[in-house]
């Protein structure tokens, strides 16, 4: 009787399918951000001097720091997945928590950046911004939209990771079943890759 129950409730495992699903989602996200990058490219092509001028107002140190933070968080989640595959549960959980902490620090830094800008009167549709040359208005519009959408993705990633933590505690994530963590990691690496492009395009315009 128990055997029959087991076969009915047997979990179907399709790791390749699950991974493919996440990759397809990632590719759709690439198109989403890709569209905005094309917009950026067009406006920068049309307004090179304004973009250069506006870019100087961004904090390069903070931007570089945020890049390092995200790269390190990617290291942590990759190592976390290796750890769970080796059965090192505690290490995996600590690395996962480190990833989340770094993601939150990134968001706090972003918060500082944005509030500084907003305090100086630079935000979408502000009078101070609208008084500036057209190219600078476009730059800051793109800056807020693209880093904002990216920041939202970081936040979602942290939330997904917290769900992973819960799964760990319930032992639903372990050496035998780790695909949810691996897929969460894939999503996080995408967020990292998007920032790898955002950083030079917004902070390092010379």
């Amino acid at each position, binding site marked *: 009787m128990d055997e029959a129950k087991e076969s009915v409730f047997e979990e179907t495992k399709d790791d390749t399918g699950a991974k493919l699903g996440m*990759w397809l989602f990632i590719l759709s996200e690439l198109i989403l951000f890709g569209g905005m990058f094309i917009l950026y490219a067009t406006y920068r092509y049309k307004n090179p001097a304004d973009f250069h001028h506006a870019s100087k107002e961004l904090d390069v140190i903070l931007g570089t720091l945020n890049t*390092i933070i995200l790269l390190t968080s*990617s*290291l942590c989640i*990759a190592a976390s997945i290796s750890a769970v595959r080796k059965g090192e549960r505690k290490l995996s959980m600590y690395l996962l928590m480190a990833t989340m902490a770094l993601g939150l620090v990134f968001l706090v830094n972003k918060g500082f950046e944005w509030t500084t800008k907003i305090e100086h009167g630079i935000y979408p549709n502000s009078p101070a911004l609208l008084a500036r040359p057209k190219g600078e208005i476009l730059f800051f519009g793109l800056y807020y939209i693209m880093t904002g959408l990216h920041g939202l993705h970081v936040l979602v990633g942290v939330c997904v990771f917290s769900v992973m933590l819960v799964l760990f505690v319930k032992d639903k994530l372990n050496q035998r079943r780790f695909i949810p963590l691996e897929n969460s990691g894939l999503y996080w690496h995408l967020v990292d890759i998007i920032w790898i*492009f955002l950083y030079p395009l917004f902070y390092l315009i*010379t």
Partner: protein
Amino acid sequence: MEKREEQTHSVKYSTYIFVWMGLLILTGLTYTVAVRIHPGGWAILVALAIAGTKSGLVLNYFMHLRSEKPLIFKVIIPLVMAVFLVFILLTFSDVAFRGGVR
């Protein structure tokens, strides 16, 4: 009962550490080139080349594309990038020639 063979084995921590160090070095490089060297017209190409290399490292090692057995992963991603490249080319073939061909 035989354990079902996994498609990829667990990656060594040291591999990840090396990739991470490479990423940090490339970040330092892109910062130095932009802020200290001022390459002028080449700036955007250098920046994109370095960013592309960093993404390649993340994709191949952190996201395991290198060790993925199914060919489908190695086909889909370049395919999407090609599509994206076409978007860019089409957009710029319009934008670059607005106001007539110089």
